[in-house]
């Protein structure tokens, strides 16, 4: 794990589905899997609840990175929610660079409730990547 604590924390927002990824983050906690502290988590019932506009809103308003995590495909508590999420988020991921926003600032993935280690890895790597990219400051640029 990189010692990101030495740097200024970044604003990273995660949207996690209640059934898998939020549980996976809990599992990581229960297992005491250490993670960087930058991420703030918003619990949603399903990754299919995550309107890509939330990601845009967050990035435009000051977030340095956004992470969306749901159940693995086929494993959705609501059976199909993450299938929609996958299409929408992939569309967004491709659109962001067209707007001039580095798509590495947005990551979507699948983590199940049992995958504490995968969650730890996801958070750690995403945080590390964002620290390499530095602050986004879109809000400042865009609202000038």
């Amino acid at each position: 794990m990189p010692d990101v604590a030495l740097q200024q924390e970044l604003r990273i927002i995660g949207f996690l589905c209640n059934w898998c990824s939020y549980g996976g983050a809990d599992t990581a906690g229960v297992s005491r899997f250490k993670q960087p502290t930058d991420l703030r988590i918003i619990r949603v019932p399903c990754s299919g609840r995550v309107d890509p506009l939330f990601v845009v809103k967050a990035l435009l308003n000051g977030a340095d990175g956004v992470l969306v995590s749901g159940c693995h495909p086929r494993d959705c508590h609501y059976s199909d929610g993450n299938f929609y999420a996958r299409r929408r988020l992939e569309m967004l991921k491709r659109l962001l660079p067209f707007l001039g926003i580095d798509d590495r600032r947005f990551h979507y993935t699948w983590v199940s409730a049992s995958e504490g280690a995968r969650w730890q890895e996801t958070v750690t790597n995403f945080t590390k990547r964002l620290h390499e990219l530095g602050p986004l400051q879109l809000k400042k640029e865009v609202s000038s």
Partner: protein
Amino acid sequence: MSIEALKETIGKVLKDVDVVIAYKEGFDALHSTPHFITSPEQIDKMIWNPLCVHNLTTYLPSMKNKKVGVVVKGCDSRTIIQFIQEGLIERGKVVVIGIPCKGVISVAKVLKAIDHKPIENISFSDNGDITITSEGEKKVLSLNDVSPDKCTTCQYPTPLIYDHLIGEEIKTEKPAESVYGDIREFEKLSLEERLKYWQGEFDRCIRCYACRNACPMCVCQDSCIAETRDPHWISQRLNLTEKFMFHMIHALHLAGRCVECGECERVCPMGIPVNKLKRKINLDMKELFDYEPGVKLDEKPPMFVFNVEEAKIKEHKI
């Protein structure tokens, strides 16, 4: 095609419907305007020429309680197909009068070509020449030079759906790869250049919502979340963040649904390339799902369906 044949067809269709939407002359020589024909004597006022730029199908979803005849060009016809894919119109209540189209003008390009001088007269010849009289002088332009971008790469000059086709079918000679040439070109810019570009363009936005209201696929219209407090996605502040957000709402809600009629861009009083984002998404939709809005009746827009296995979506690694 002959205008007489069109008028004759409209006359016939009118017997069957409440209104036929066509075109008539607008407030000056360069503009036409939508013409709502409810009685036969109004037919005579109608026109057909490259000034007929509007996508008249945009009125259809708001006229569900009426039976409507509508004149469409090739590009406009995609809207009808998209409406049907999304269940937004009842096919039986719409009579589509299709016209194969060789291209229309872009008012903005014509004005630029004649240096924004007042226009007294404009005429069109079959070979694509446009003769403009301005300040007493005649100037000849080529339609190709003053067509909107959508015409220069048009793939569907003949309507894809119609009940009546006026005139001979036209086949496109324009290469399919050209359609998104500008998008690919834009993608060669650096991230910083792109962001700067959009900041400059969106900064002019006055949030008049002409782009939204002219868009046939913007189903929300008066319920648009750009103006609501519940949900409260954006404020009425006129800063760049909110303008940016509005255009993202517009683009994302049109994801995989935009038929590229270009009305949003045509109507923007501030000259913002509003269609570009949607066309970028369309390019992705084509690559990811082999989907092109408004082309095939039996398809569904990609954001409302899924495949359990998505052949083209790869898991992203950090």
